[in-house]
């Protein structure tokens, strides 16, 4: 179906090749996951499959790409689009019409189908994706997940044989992401559509895919069934292995366990159900010493004891917020945060998480209640004044840069906050050093890689040395390596007595750093507790990490374990 031979591609103006000697065959009906670190060439490869390269993006190209016996380089994108559908990362930039129905028929109108045919295909698509209830709704009124569903629908209406999705769930909460992935899985299994998916969060998608391709530096470095790839002892795989598989790979090193429970080391389970079945006897037999209370987490009261002598840096008292009359977004918010805390906020899309964040620095003002930052009531302070204490980093780093160089970005902030030039120079030097930006100071910020942009955004906030750092989905679009580096910076910063508060949907990152998590639902803080307590709570089931989902199938195990390392430690210390 897809045949790529010796494909090389070099973007104009870039120093290195984006794709190097790519040879790839994809058969009809396959569900292929392409992953790799940022800048590894994933997006370039899929754009070569649907003809956007070389028809839309110019550059130097060699080799051949054949899709459905068509030479992609010679066909017009308009013709290719009818066979190869592509859904992009940001739904907002791929929807053009005012309401759902007009959006779904837009592509069909473009290929000049008859009105009868358009109507039939429209109805089929609506039925297939269950869009009937939103058929007449305005696009602007849809949530992120709904918009992405419409974007997929608009492509499906054209009845493509191949569906390419470029990180379609990166902006969605786990619930909406799961819905979208189910839709895609049905299309693959029931209609036999070939699916090519790009995704960083492998734990989200691994159970759906037949084949995994890992790219690095413009090349395919791994290609095969996920199980086979994970079994290979290879350093390049370490960032892509989901937690439960990491655990399994450790378990199979114990020959005693394998022989006692007849576990085949070569059969890596794909999902939690399969996993639970294979390891059922082993887990049920696990006995750990009763005196070991390590895995029974404390409650919030115990956690708060360490702040008994501290004054809160953030205080929210009976805060309520509404955009319009009688449309309350947040209510009854009472919250305190102390120096040195690392707090994460979770919840579905549209429950008020971002609204909550924007109250910290006055971007939004509460309708009722008081907010104190660093002891000051912020009621009469402007955003710029509060920002001295509260740094705020938005979701997409690239939209935050407006200067010609990284250095100027930092200088403008220092100038806005009227920091004395000698001191400003010192701070610029210090933070560009600390965040590894020294060699990037003279580069146009939007040309930087995603991780570098996120570091620059972080530096623009840290140079003014705020006490509190607020971030909205900072790991969105980051690969595993970038995430590791980024969280290390944050951890270092909060250890100096500052506070880090972030909203994220990235469940596996949640297990690593934040000690405290707030769970939002319908504009209220429903849970405010230790990470382990929140992530293992029944009402946060959509946010439960893989390891905890596995643990919950076995009542004899401590049900608050959320990390692979903890489970391994438990196994090591248990009697087998």
């Amino acid at each position, binding site marked *: 179906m897809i045949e790529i031979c010796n494909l090389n591609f070099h973007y104009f103006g870039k120093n290195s090749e984006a794709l190097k000697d790519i040879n790839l065959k994809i058969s009809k009906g396959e569900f292929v996951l392409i992953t790799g670190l940022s800048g590894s060439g994933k997006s370039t490869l899929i754009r070569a499959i649907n003809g956007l390269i070389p028809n839309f993006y110019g550059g130097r190209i060699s080799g051949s790409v054949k899709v459905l016996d068509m030479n992609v380089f010679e066909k017009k994108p308009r013709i290719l*689009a*009818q066979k190869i559908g592509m859904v992009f990362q940001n739904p907002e930039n791929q929807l053009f019409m005012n309401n759902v*129905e007009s959006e779904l028929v837009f*592509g069909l109108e473009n*290929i000049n189908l008859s009105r009868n045919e358009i109507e039939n295909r429209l109805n089929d698509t609506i039925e297939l994706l269950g869009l009937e209830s939103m058929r007449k709704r305005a696009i602007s009124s849809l949530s992120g997940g709904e918009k992405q569903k419409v974007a997929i629908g608009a492509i499906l209406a054209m009845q493509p044989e191949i569906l390419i999705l470029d990180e379609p769930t990166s902006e969605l909460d786990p619930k909406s992401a799961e819905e979208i992935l189910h839709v895609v899985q049905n299309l693959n299994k029931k209609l036999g559509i070939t699916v090519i998916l790009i995704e960083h969060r492998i734990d989200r998608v691994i159970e759906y895919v037949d084949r995994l391709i890992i790219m690095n530096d413009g090349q395919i470095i791994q290609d095969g069934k996920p199980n086979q790839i994970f079994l290979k002892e290879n350093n390049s795989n370490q960032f892509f292995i989901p937690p439960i598989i990491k655990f399994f790979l450790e378990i199979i090193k114990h020959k005693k366990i394998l022989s006692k429970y007849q576990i085949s080391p070569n059969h890596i389970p794909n999902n939690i159900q399969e996993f639970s079945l294979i390891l059922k006897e082993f887990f049920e037999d696990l006995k750990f010493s009763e005196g070991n209370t390590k895995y029974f987490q404390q409650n919030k009261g115990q956690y708060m004891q360490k702040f008994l002598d501290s004054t809160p840096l953030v205080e929210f008292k009976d805060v309520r917020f509404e955009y319009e009359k009688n449309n309350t977004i947040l209510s009854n918010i009472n919250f305190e945060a102390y120096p040195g805390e690392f707090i994460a906020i979770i919840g579905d899309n549209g429950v008020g998480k971002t609204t909550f964040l924007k109250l910290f620095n006055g*971007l939004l003002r509460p309708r009722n209640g008081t907010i104190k930052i660093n002891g000051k009531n912020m009621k009469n302070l*402007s955003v710029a004044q509060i920002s001295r204490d509260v740094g705020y980093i938005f979701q997409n780093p690239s939209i935050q840069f407006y200067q010609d160089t990284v250095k100027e970005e930092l200088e403008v902030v220092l100038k806005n906050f009227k920091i004395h030039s000698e001191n400003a120079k010192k701070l610029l030097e210090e933070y560009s050093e600390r965040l590894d930006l020294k060699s990037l100071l003279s580069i146009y910020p939007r040309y930087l890689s995603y991780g570098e942009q996120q570091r620059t955004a972080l530096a*623009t906030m840290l140079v003014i040395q705020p006490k509190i750092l607020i971030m909205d989905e900072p790991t969105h679009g980051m690969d595993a390596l970038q995430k590791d580096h980024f969280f290390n910076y944050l951890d270092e910063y909060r250890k100096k007595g500052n506070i880090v508060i972030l909203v994220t949907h990235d469940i596996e990152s949640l297990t690593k750093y934040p000690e405290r998590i707030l769970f939002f639902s319908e504009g209220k803080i429903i849970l405010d507790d230790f990470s382990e307590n929140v992530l293992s709570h029944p009402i946060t089931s959509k946010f439960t990490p893989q390891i905890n989902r596995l643990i919950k199938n076995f009542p004899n195990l401590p049900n608050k374990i959320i990390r692979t390392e903890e489970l391994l430690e438990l196994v090591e210390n248990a009697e087998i």
Partner: protein
Amino acid sequence: MNFLQLTYRPKENFIYRSNGVVKIFILLNLFIQSFIFDHPFYLGVIFFNILILVLFSNCWEEILIYFRFMLIISLFTFFINIILYPEGTTIIFQILNDFPILGGFKITFETIVSSLLIILRLTLIFLIFGTFNLIINTDELIQVLVKLRFPHSIVFIITLSLNFFPLILKDLERIREIQQCKGLELEKGNFFRKFNNNVKLILPLLTNSLERSIQNAEALEARAFDIKGKREFYRKLRITISDYFIMIFVISLLIFQIYITFQGFGEFIIYPTLSGIFLANLEYYALLISFISNILVIGLLYLEDKIER
């Protein structure tokens, strides 16, 4: 302020439910009226007619935001006009000294009245465009253009700009927030400082829009879009007999208004000396007819909605 409030959001009332073409005709009629009449009484009647339309549309909260914009522009216009156009004979303030280059300075009663009338007319135009933005669904506008056989390239550009207007507003709001977080003072300080700082939002908006346009172009390719290609339109404009009836009524009303202006109704002489403000008896009748007819149009929309439902 939520800029998105200034764009079309469906509401449950008879104005929102009525046919877009009819609404376009009604607003176009009011727009032309606000240009052909000069007399403040006539302009005042148009003002009330628009307010009634806004009231029934239940979008007065959004219109108030337009008013806030208008207030700033009005003040600016008022002073600029007074300074740069000191015509008229009734002098109420004068500095005789000849300043180098600038010469003397005077404020006349006629200039003040003229400036107030300019503001009134500008407000009318602003209100009409505001109401248009709020009550006309862009898809309906597109269907009208398709019906009028506008070339597809033009229709698509209009679609894109109309549908992207809310996104650009969202972008602007986001840039405002980002810049404030970076310490740019947009809330405090004097008018000029705030104005100067607000100008700093424009360049980022352009950069973001350019970046967005590349992503849009890519997504358009994926949807088999071809500006020159032949295409079908799934939804075509449906106009009922009652719609035609209301449109004919609106056109007749407009013809009547144009006719009376040719008869000298609605005239108002400002320069060199202000004419009297009061109208002749017949002119009051014409004014009343205009007022009632415009309200009648709204009544007809209501009646049509009742019948259809």
